């Protein structure tokens, strides 16, 4: 593997590797948590946190545009839509 990140400013390759591996593990853990949480509102909140994790991951992999998309859609817009839907159907489900 060559330099994980080549930038005009110098970031030690090893440091970047550690960051990226850590984030990959965190994202995997986050996704698992979202699937395992059964209580719906908490699941949506976990999904939002997972969106933030993914956004940071994309940033560490040098994709700032995807970071912004993920941050706005994955961490904010999608949870809002889901929470509103939950508020609407709460009674009917019980």
């Amino acid at each position, binding site marked *: *593997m060559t330099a994980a990140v080549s930038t005009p400013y110098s970031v030690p390759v090893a440091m970047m590797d550690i960051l990226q591996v850590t984030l990959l593990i965190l994202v995997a853990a986050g996704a698992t948590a979202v699937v395992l949480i059964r209580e719906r509102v908490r699941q949506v909140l976990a999904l939002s946190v997972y969106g933030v994790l993914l956004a940071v991951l994309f940033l560490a992999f040098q994709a700032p*545009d995807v970071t912004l998309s993920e941050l*706005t859609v994955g961490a*904010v*817009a999608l949870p*809002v839509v889901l929470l*509103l*839907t939950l508020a*609407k159907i*709460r009674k009917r489900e019980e």
Partner: protein
Amino acid sequence: MTPAQRRLVFALGAAGLAAFYLWGLFGLPGFGSYPGPYGFVINRIAVGQTNATGVVSTVNFDYRGFDTVGEEFILFAAAAGVATVLRRLRGERERPAVDEAADRQVRPTSSAVRMIALLFTGPVVVMGWWLAVHAQTNPSGGFQGGVVLATAFVLIYLSGEFLVSKRVSPVDLTEVVEAVGAGGFAAVGVSAVAMGLPYLKDFLPLGTVPGAVSSGGTIPLISFFVGLEVAAAFILIVGELLEQTLLIRQEGQ
């Protein structure tokens, strides 16, 4: 079909999937390897050709602008679909809203949430506007900027001002803005054709200083239209859902 047969079919399918998945995994290129010349070529020539330093936007709104038109109309179709499905048909009566959970306790929004939401509304609008109209110099563009702008609307709602958030985004106006955004993008492309150039060819002056506000020609213009479209589409979708929830809540109180 007996449960045993069903399990057999599942086992066969699962084994096939696993085999193909592993086969695919072993054929993957190494981590971070990039064989194609396309990205390297773009990186070398993009700034020189357009004077825009936000190369991601240059790719989205110029080199591959035609893809982006398609993407934009996906969102347009989604928002139009929501508006169509949730509209009132002729001969349909609007049922008075019923609280589906009369026993729930609606807590008043805490002043901490209201304060933070109010504090963030202004900066979020500025941020979204900057992202949407300065695509030539920042790494995002109209899509992200539009969603950030729509988030400001959600913040106004969070700060407890639903009536204000309705007043600043009446449905008719939002629909017009969405249509202008979607149409504007296509119109920029057609204008190029009218001048005898290829569809979506960058026909505006590119500026002289790379990364200046005036650089990039049609890139910031297209990004602006995309921003309008995306912001309006999100406000429409979230607004429809809010209304469904809030009508019921108001009725219950």
